[in-house]
């Protein structure tokens, strides 16, 4: 049983000097796209600098322009984009490169790792050939030599069985392996700058952790600077020394990662820090602060400070003149504000275009009131009521007994849900956690009736539910509803939003005639969507608004149970918080129960009263949120928790890597399904016998051969932080 060596608290800062050319030097970069006759400025003047060997995190939400910046560094903007300003990589101005020089540049000096590794690799070409291409065309090697070098580079990224991987096609590899291949490809000819664009989004938590381990390890060995583009603050904390926060095409804050995250000096950064649930937070004891308003649409004209429309600290001067990127700590922000207020009322004077940072400092902030940020007013907290207040004592609303569901894939039979039983009380939230292939989505679909379970019963309020939705009574349908993951597909784009809710109110709510309109209005008010948005098509609504409407739709018939399948995962972080708050508020008001599925453990911890952990079609642990997230808990849960990149600088915790890869559902391991990867495997018993259900406490059970007392001792002995 091994544990990765202790985490460095922060990656080491680079030993660079100003005399060496910066790995990336962006000066006043402005990128505008021209689409359908409109000018959409995506980057409005960004200046930043990454030293050789340094790791820089670029953080922002959708539409802020972070990917565009990476594309500009590669000179790979779409034909509809124009850029101004300078981008220099390793001292070379990217825009002056000839076509042939640009070709050598790409992959040679700058390399990139992409978000979705499955689509980033060519499906019809073997992995080895794709790797070899880089060597053949950059270093002029012949095919044989190139393949040998490829084998070497696969070894460096710790791919299991590199020789046979060379001969495989991308679709035959798992997501984690695919990403390793992409990383190997990027690093093959020692680039000066490595760009990582959301490298782990879409990967399972444990796989993500492995990839991060890999990147961290490689950081020490290569001399490339790293530009990490992500919306996940935890990743930045783990890998980067410096961070820049991008909002609406402008850099609003920059500085050493630790300082920026522990002491944010821009209202947006502060807002982000407050709206992300930290591990250990629960809805009953702390509230998520939301950022009011929505992210600005591309091309929307913004007056003054790009963030002023949503800033709780905004003053009139903020909308009149955009602040410079002031150094911090200093009194430049104050001086800047005074100077701005003293300007004559001439519009031109109010529209400066200062991309360059003003003043020298370890940090910069684009806010006149940087000194007031720590005291930023909070939005109204939404705390959940207690379980009793929500009616939990009234008994179970949902009882699932021995549910089984199998699929046929050609000749193979997969068991997606294997003998799962759980129960849910009124007003309770049951969080369902698991990685891909765990069966959680299948379970959710069986509960709602979208898929029929093969066997097992679903009892809802003493009523046995028919396996398929089409057979259920209207009463059962209105009582058990669902909120889906993808906000863009959850509402029918051909209907008006009002029509969608009206139909739901009629069908599920049974309303007739005049009361329909009133009910629709009250539903949309309940989810904070103003009536004028109802007149629009779903395509014109933002992601957050669409999801709110979807929630309203699910509540149209006053349901008793709502299954939420990753309802906030596809949304930006600032929007996610408001959706979670909405769900909590509705639960308190309507005493509705939730089955809440998510891969984001912090979110599940926050919103759930009880949690179930699924692995390979089985429910391996069930208990209250507190119990499941603290020892004693199942070794898989333990490893899962350790894999989250945490934002906490003082207590990062020990990382527990899992051996091997997720087994296939068609051939589950014998005995305990987790034994092939378990870091606490006892011995042969784990392979031969199915583990019993251990009772750690009343209401907390898990399937393992290790008894609770021993597990508790083992897990706390290593200084596991409680979560």
């Amino acid at each position, binding site marked *: 049983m091994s544990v990765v060596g202790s985490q460095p608290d922060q990656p080491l800062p680079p030993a660079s000097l100003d005399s060496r050319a910066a790995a990336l030097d962006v000066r006043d970069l402005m990128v505008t796209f021209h689409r*359908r006759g409109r000018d959409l400025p995506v980057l409005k003047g960004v200046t930043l600098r990454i030293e050789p060997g340094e790791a820089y995190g670029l953080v922002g939400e959708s539409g802020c322009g972070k990917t565009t910046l990476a594309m500009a560094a590669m000179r790979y903007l779409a034909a509809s984009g124009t850029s101004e300003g300078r981008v220099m990589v390793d001292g070379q101005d990217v825009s002056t490169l000839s076509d042939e020089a640009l070709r050598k540049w790409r992959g040679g000096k700058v390399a990139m790792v992409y978000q979705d590794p499955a689509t980033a690799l060519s499906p019809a070409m073997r992995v080895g050939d794709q790797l070899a291409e880089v060597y053949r065309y950059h270093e002029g090697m012949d095919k044989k030599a190139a393949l040998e070098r490829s084998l070497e580079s696969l070894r460096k990224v710790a791919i299991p069985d590199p020789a046979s991987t060379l001969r495989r096609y991308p679709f035959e590899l798992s997501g984690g392996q695919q990403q390793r291949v992409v990383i190997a490809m990027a690093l093959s000819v020692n680039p000066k700058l490595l760009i990582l664009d959301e490298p782990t989004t879409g990967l399972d938590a444990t796989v993500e952790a492995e990839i991060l381990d890999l990147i961290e390890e490689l950081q020490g060995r290569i001399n490339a600077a790293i530009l990490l583009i992500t919306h996940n603050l935890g990743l930045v904390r783990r890998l980067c020394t410096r961070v820049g926060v991008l909002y609406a095409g402008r850099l609003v804050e920059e500085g050493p990662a630790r300082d920026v995250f522990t002491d944010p000096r821009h209202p947006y950064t502060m807002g982000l820090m407050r709206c992300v649930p930290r591990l250990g937070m629960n809805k009953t004891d702390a509230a998520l602060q939301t950022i009011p308003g929505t992210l600005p649409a591309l091309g929307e004209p913004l007056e003054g400070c790009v963030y002023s429309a949503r800033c709780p600290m*905004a003053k009139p001067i903020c909308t009149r003149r955009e602040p410079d990127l002031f150094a911090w700590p200093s009194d430049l922000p104050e001086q800047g504000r005074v100077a701005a207020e003293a300007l004559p009322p001439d519009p031109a004077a109010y529209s400066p275009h200062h991309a360059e940072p003003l003043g020298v400092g370890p940090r910069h902030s684009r806010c006149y009131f940087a000194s007031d940020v720590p005291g930023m007013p909070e939005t109204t907290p939404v705390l959940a009521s207690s379980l009793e207040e929500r009616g939990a004592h009234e008994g179970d609303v949902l009882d699932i007994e021995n549910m089984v569901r199998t699929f046929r894939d050609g000749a193979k039979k997969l068991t997606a849900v294997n003998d799962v039983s759980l129960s849910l009380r009124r007003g309770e939230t049951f969080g369902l956690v698991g990685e891909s292939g765990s069966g959680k989505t299948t379970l959710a679909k069986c509960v*709602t009736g979208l898929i029929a379970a093969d066997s097992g019963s679903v009892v809802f309020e003493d009523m046995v539910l028919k396996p398929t939705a089409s057979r259920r009574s*209207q009463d059962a349908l209105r009582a058990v509803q669902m909120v*889906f993951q*993808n906000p863009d*597909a*959850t509402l029918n784009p051909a209907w008006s939003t009002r029509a969608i809710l009206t139909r739901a109110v009629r069908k599920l709510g049974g309303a007739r005639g005049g009361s329909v309109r009133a009910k629709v209005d009250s539903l949309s008010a309940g989810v904070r969507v103003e009536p004028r948005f109802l007149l629009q098509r779903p395509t014109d609504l933002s992601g957050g608004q669409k999801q709110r409407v979807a929630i309203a739709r699910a509540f149209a018939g006053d349901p008793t149970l709502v299954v939420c399948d990753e309802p906030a995962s596809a949304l930006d972080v600032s929007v996610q918080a408001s959706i979670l708050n909405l769900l909590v508020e509705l639960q308190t008001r309507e005493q509705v129960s939730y089955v809440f599925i998510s891969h984001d453990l912090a979110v599940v911890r926050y919103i759930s009263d009880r949690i179930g952990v699924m692995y390979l079609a089985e429910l391996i642990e069930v208990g209250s949120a507190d119990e499941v997230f603290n020892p004693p808990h199942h070794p898989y849960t333990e490893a899962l928790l350790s894999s989250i990149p945490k934002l906490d600088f003082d207590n990062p915790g020990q990382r527990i890597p899992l051996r091997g890869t997720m087994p296939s559902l068609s051939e589950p391991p014998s005995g305990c399904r987790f034994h092939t990867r378990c870091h606490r495997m006892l011995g042969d018993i784990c392979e031969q016998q199915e583990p019993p259900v251990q009772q750690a406490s009343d209401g907390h059970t898990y399937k393992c051969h290790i008894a609770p007392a021993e597990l508790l001792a083992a897990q706390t002995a290593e200084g596991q932080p409680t979560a």
Partner: protein
Amino acid sequence: MATTGTTPDRGDLELQVNAAAEAEQRRQRRFVVRTLFRSPTFLAGLVILLFWIFMAVFSTHVTQSPTNTGGAILASPSGAHWFGTDDLGRDVFARTMAGAHTVLIIAPLATALALLWGGIVGLIAGYHRGLTDDIIMRIVDAFLALPVIITAILIIALLGRSYAVLIVVIGALFTPVVSRTVRSAVIGEREREYVMAARLRGERSAFVMAREILPNITQPIIVEGTVRLGYAVFTAATLSFLGFGLEPPSPDWGLVIASEWSNLQTAPWVVLAPALALASMVVAVNLVADGISSAFSK
């Protein structure tokens, strides 16, 4: 019910933003129409098509009589007869202009039938999948394996040569292809969350197919329809040429080409005029179709 943390003037900003969104929508629709009309090929096709539609309706008013057998036999093009005369002394120009009528009735109606039947079959097969889908698609495959022209000939030989038969036969023979396209569009939409939401409301299959899915697949259907229209013109003309279209003395182009074939060496204009007219019509339909599908894909 106020949005958390809103200051009074924020509401105005939201109102402005919303108005901007509506204006944006209108702009985008106008932009699509404008792109269409900026495309020279689309315009060319449209002009030609409109010309033929005009001729189909008004030809007898603007040309000489196409049935008047008074002229010289097989006369070369001249001032009096722009395209010369045929072997019965009729003015070729007038006959050619009148020939637009038949094609412009048969092709659009046949296409409409094909879209209707193919749409229904495709919706049912695509939505239900499983056994229903397998059976339907086997049958569709079998019909697709039959050569269109020959099957059409057989049925027309049985039922006779008339507008109605031609329209129904061509429509029926195009149905399998249309059903294929519709089916794959339906399959693309079927697993989307809004369909799942509809099923969770207890909506019946017919409702889901017609009200939920169908409105979202209009674009591929329109594109397919415009392509089929071109092929319908093509097929109708070919059938006429082979002797299975309308009866003489219809000025139908395919029929004229076939019947005047023997004069090809001596008086080519009699055959060329309807041939070029047909070519221009088919090309025009397809340019319009191409323009529409490009405009959608922008």
